[in-house]
């Protein structure tokens, strides 16, 4: 079936709720309203009000509650309406969700998913545009997943719900509806922790994820450069091997991300490539990233986002040495 990313989220939730009656969906406005982006549309009608629940406006309680429910044996899939509202629950992710397995030596675990739309470019108000996957990837014990295509969204969300550890599933809302493709019917799982090679090439490796993939592919498709494009898909744990193998082949690398540059995921990728493939590098690794600023409000957010010309410029810099 042809689907957008947001429809793929919905399809995965339908599938997993049918398959496993321990899967419970909750968050602000997810039931009656079907979610502000309609990602949870029709779930209430199909699975009832015990399994699809509107919560009070309480991010700490949503994430902390999901942790407790998961410890008790359920498979909660909690929605945080916008990732900019997740910071109040940062404490629950750091203090409880990510540590309960470690704390109890595996006696208790928190197999849960926190879904949240992230990123700029939808003309939203303040606190609706952040891209802080780097901050969450810094938390040991928490997995961070960012899909970029509808098929991967279904497969990665399915895998996240089935995963034995807590997963933060960050959905690229800017491309929620702009990308449409055939997604597999029925059961479809994409393993976490494995990057995808979107284009094969020999001259330079370009690594991105989430909402940065369409402009990255556009930048590559519109140039004469034979670039290899890697979609990281899972930020934590990171598939270093696929990236390193590609860099060993091309000798050059550009990392593209929307979040702030300093201590962003790009910094870690540069470090890992240095660890694994330093002697293969023919030029410094380039980063095309958001600035170390707040995401501008809607009137100027396009200046902040890496668009194809900036990405092309990064590729040319990587090729210039």
């Amino acid at each position, binding site marked *: 079936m042809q689907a957008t990313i947001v429809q793929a989220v919905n399809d995965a939730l339908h599938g997993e709720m049918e398959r496993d009656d321990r899967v419970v969906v909750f968050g602000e406005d997810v039931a009656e309203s079907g979610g502000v982006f309609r990602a949870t549309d029709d779930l209430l009608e199909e699975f009832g009000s015990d399994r699809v629940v509107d919560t009070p406006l309480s991010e700490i309680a949503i994430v902390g509650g999901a942790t407790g429910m998961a410890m008790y044996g359920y498979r909660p899939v909690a929605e945080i309406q916008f990732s900019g509202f997740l910071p109040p629950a940062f404490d629950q992710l750091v203090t409880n969700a990510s540590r309960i397995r470690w704390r109890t030596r595996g006696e208790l675990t928190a197999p849960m998913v926190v879904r949240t739309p992230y990123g700029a470019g939808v*003309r939203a108000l303040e606190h609706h545009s952040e891209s802080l996957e780097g901050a969450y990837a810094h938390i040991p014990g928490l997995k961070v997943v960012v899909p970029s295509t509808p098929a991967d969204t279904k497969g990665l969300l399915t895998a996240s719900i089935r995963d034995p550890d807590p997963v933060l599933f960050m959905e690229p809302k800017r491309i929620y509806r702009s990308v449409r493709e055939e997604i597999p019917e029925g059961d479809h799982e994409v393993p976490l922790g494995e990057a995808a090679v979107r284009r094969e090439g020999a001259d330079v490796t370009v690594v991105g994820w989430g909402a940065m993939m369409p402009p990255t592919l556009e930048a590559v498709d519109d140039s004469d450069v034979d670039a290899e494009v890697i979609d990281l898909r899972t930020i934590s744990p990171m598939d270093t091997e696929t990236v390193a193998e590609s860099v060993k082949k091309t000798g050059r690398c550009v990392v593209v991300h929307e979040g702030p540059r300093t201590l962003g995921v790009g910094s870690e990728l540069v470090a890992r490539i240095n660890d694994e493939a330093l002697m293969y590098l023919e030029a410094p690794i380039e980063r095309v990233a958001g600035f170390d600023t707040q995401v501008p409000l809607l009137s100027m957010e396009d200046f902040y986002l890496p668009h194809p010309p900036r990405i092309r410029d990064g590729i040319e810099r990587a090729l210039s040495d």
Partner: protein
Amino acid sequence: MSDRASDRRVPSAVGNGDGEVAVLSQADLAVPTHQIVEPDGSYDPEVVPDLSEEELCDLYRWMVTDRVFSRRMVNIQRRGELGTFGSTRGQEASIIGSAFTLEPQDWLYVGRAWTPMFMRGASMDDMIRFWRGIEEGQQAFAKQNSQIAISIGSHVPLVAGLAWGMQLDDADAVATAYIGDGATSTGAAHEGINLAGALSLPALFFCQNNQYAISMPVDEQTGAKTLAQKALAYGIDAIRVDGQDVLAVYDAVQTARERVKNGTPVFVESVTYRLDAHTTSDDPTRYREDEEVRAWEENDPIERYRSFLKSEGLWSQIDHDAIVEDIEAEFDAALAAANEMAERQVAEIFAHVYEELPPELSRQQEAFEALLEKRPEMYDHIEQRPKG
């Protein structure tokens, strides 16, 4: 130490010796809802607040301002000239009655209430700019001791902190947090209100219970019978008021403000209704019945106040059509001014992150400006959206 503070330090584990388990319930607590003008327009002249005729007329004018402004903003949003907007239609009595009590030195930190900004001198063009995602809007509000919080409840601890500063300064002022029913569920609100209670800070929490937090009705938002009762657990006082009755709201918040100034934080629950969608991005038909909306439309706060003005013989002093015409003209001028805003520069993204631009940010800015010059095709992807 105040009497109030010393009261709290009495040892708590002193029983009354009757051997009974006493179960406390919210149902045991009578929570009256303050009202002056009843929905049918009747009222007791003895309890009308002591306001001058001019002030009584001003209340009406500001309520109409609020309604016209919301209507015009929704209209320009529908025309694609604005980003998301949150209308306040239906909440005019709640918003205006409360803000009318405040002094310029008071802090006003709102969730959903725009006209109070105008009441303290902000311009409509700044408000339009704010909703267009232009930071200068918030900058203008800051000059009038006011701000708008987008992240629900996040401003409540800030208001406690503002009040703390006022307390330390012995200032003749209060700090107010306007919140909604949904915000009372947030962790930030709990901690902020508790801090104000613990330190007896001059903070006034004005909760507009407009019945819905996006799609969630208030009776599903909390197990509490009323939001006012929540205040008691924080050791602060509470008032519940009919938010459709502008005089009752004024009276309640004026009373609250006096208590707050004397070191007793107060929580006011104003029972009102959001007639429009949560924001222009929301579809309320998915979660509420038209019949319910119609019933609240019949409970219109402006209509109720109009009947009061007629009873008082003040209606003849008010030219409703002229008021609307004036506000429409003010809006037209504000929109024109907002549209005239000069194109913005990339440097603004970097300018206010820190007081002094760190070297790495300077480097990022210079590199980006050089890139824009080198690759003019960048502008194919950049829309400044001066109209949101």
